[in-house]
């Protein structure tokens, strides 16, 4: 049975990954936050695979363990096997990277990595959706402000101001939000 260790500063995020690994019969020996004790955790739990966020600062700690055991009979390798660069790319793109101990055959390793990639992507989709929602929200605020500026400057009503904005945005082939931002920036200089 493969021993998997999950390291993530957001434990909630990797909870589903942990569950799915457990369900498919892997042993999750540890699930920890990026902690100061990562080094001793590796010694204590002796995982075969460490799953970690690509952008975790603790990766350098794992690098050191890799290099220090490089010439031992059980070397630790970066990512997955050398012959599997595509998978490695996919994983990094999803924000996950795996440190693998020893020569684990690909068919045993693959499901773990696949599960991690799937879970990280799911999370990324959620985060992207949230970002998009936030952008839209702030865009609406910006448009309101620009509209207000135009109304005041030209002494027109809200509908007219919006029509002006929309027409200009269409002419310039940019979003109304973008145009509104520029109007506000310019107003800061000019008014």
């Amino acid at each position, binding site marked *: 049975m493969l021993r998997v260790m999950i390291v993530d*500063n957001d434990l909630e995020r990797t909870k589903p990954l942990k569950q799915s690994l457990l369900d498919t019969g892997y042993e999750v020996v540890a699930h920890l936050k990026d902690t*100061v004790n990562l080094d001793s955790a590796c010694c204590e739990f002796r995982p075969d695979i460490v799953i970690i966020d690509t*952008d975790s600062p603790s990766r*350098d700690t794992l690098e050191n363990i890799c*290099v220090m055991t*490089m010439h031992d009979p059980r070397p630790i390798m*970066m990512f997955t096997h050398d012959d599997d660069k595509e998978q490695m790319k996919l994983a990094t793109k999803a924000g996950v990277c795996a440190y693998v101990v020893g020569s684990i055959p690909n068919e045993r390793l693959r499901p773990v990595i696949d599960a991690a990639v799937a879970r990280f992507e799911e999370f990324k989709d959620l985060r992207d959706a949230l970002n998009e929602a936030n952008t839209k929200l702030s865009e609406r605020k910006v448009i309101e402000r620009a509209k207000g500026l135009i109304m005041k400057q030209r002494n027109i009503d809200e509908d007219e101001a919006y029509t002006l904005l929309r027409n*200009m945005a269409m002419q310039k082939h940019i979003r109304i939000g973008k145009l509104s931002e520029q109007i506000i*920036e310019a107003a800061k200089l000019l008014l």
Partner: protein
Amino acid sequence: MSTYDSTPDMNVKPVIENSNSVNNGRRDFFRTTAAGAFGAATVMGLVPKSISTQAYAAGSDAPEITEVKIGFIPLTDCAPIVVAAEMGFDKKYGIKITPSKEASWAAIRDKTVNGELHAAHVLYGLVYGVQLGIGGQQKDMAVLMTLNHNGQGITLANQLKDKGVKDGHSLKRLLDNENRDFTFAQTFPTGTHAMWLNYWLAANGINPVKDVKTIVVPPPQMVANMRIGNMDGYCVGEPWNARAIYDKVGYTVATSQDIWVDHPEKVLGTTAEFVAKNPNTSRAMIMAILDACRYIEATENRAKVAKLISGKAYVNAPEEVIAGRFIGDYDNGIGKKWKDPNFMKFFEDGKVNFPYLSDGMWFLTQHKRWGLLKADPDYLAVASKINQVKLYSEAASQLGISVPKDVMRTSKLMDGVVWDGKNPAAYAASFKIKA
């Protein structure tokens, strides 16, 4: 306790698109509006003259790609990248540099290797480690220029002060008398801090491989780790040694310039593939950053630069912690204050930036010494391949910066041993204390 408490920004994805925490409101305005609804004439009227008149002459020298993303780690010596981008030195050479804050050296390496970053502020030794496939996949790498000399240090935890440790000799004595494991941290197995720490310990009779335990901790987390007693000492770049004193958890037992005056430190690194495909962009990057290095070197500009890089988007440390050692005002935290003439240097008329082959080779000799390399590589061939002497020389000449004639330089390190790049294999084998 999580170390994140003291470094909250390391949790967020830190690519800097539009940082408002630093004083660049005007430039952002140009970026967002120049191509927008307002006429170019209006905008150009506001562009400082130095930029509009010194536009880079297009032609065969035109950069292949004009927008470059350069990775960095929050350290004082990331200044050349930040200054080149924030103060518009990049524009003079027809490129736009976007600094990208990264969380680890491993991330810097991977993103540079897979092309997500075009180049990076990176540890000298790390680039050589990747070239030789130490601990990961091999990839042909390139060093475009050296970014700085000096300005790193070794910090010991305050409890060692109570035991009378004030230098290497007294540390050795404590190690001999106290029967416990001593732990030291550095920043990356093949990096510069690992080599400074090892060299310093060994010069004091301590074998870094056999006598102590070595761990790796990311620079911004060093202080927090020391506070909870995770280590006895660490080697890292500033401002994280000054920060330990500021936070009253440790003191400086040695600076890196104590180990080697004017040692090479960070470089502007990329892949050989990137240089082959984008020689003009590479040259433009060197020129922009050389220009920035020249600017930073001037003492009168240092306070301004310290303020700029102290922002949350960059080093994220109090300005006062960066500013002192940045101009050579040192305080070791146990009563010694001095003006260090060998503080962090970025230019010195180009002497800092020239990619001396002997500098690159030195890291290989230490990789061999500490067992990261099993056999002697072809030292000179590797360094000649990685260090882009020709490209650098072209860039420097265009800026009227002198280029040294010899690709080797001679240095005497703290133990009196001289390194001149002439017989690397013999030099690597000459050390009594090794892996």
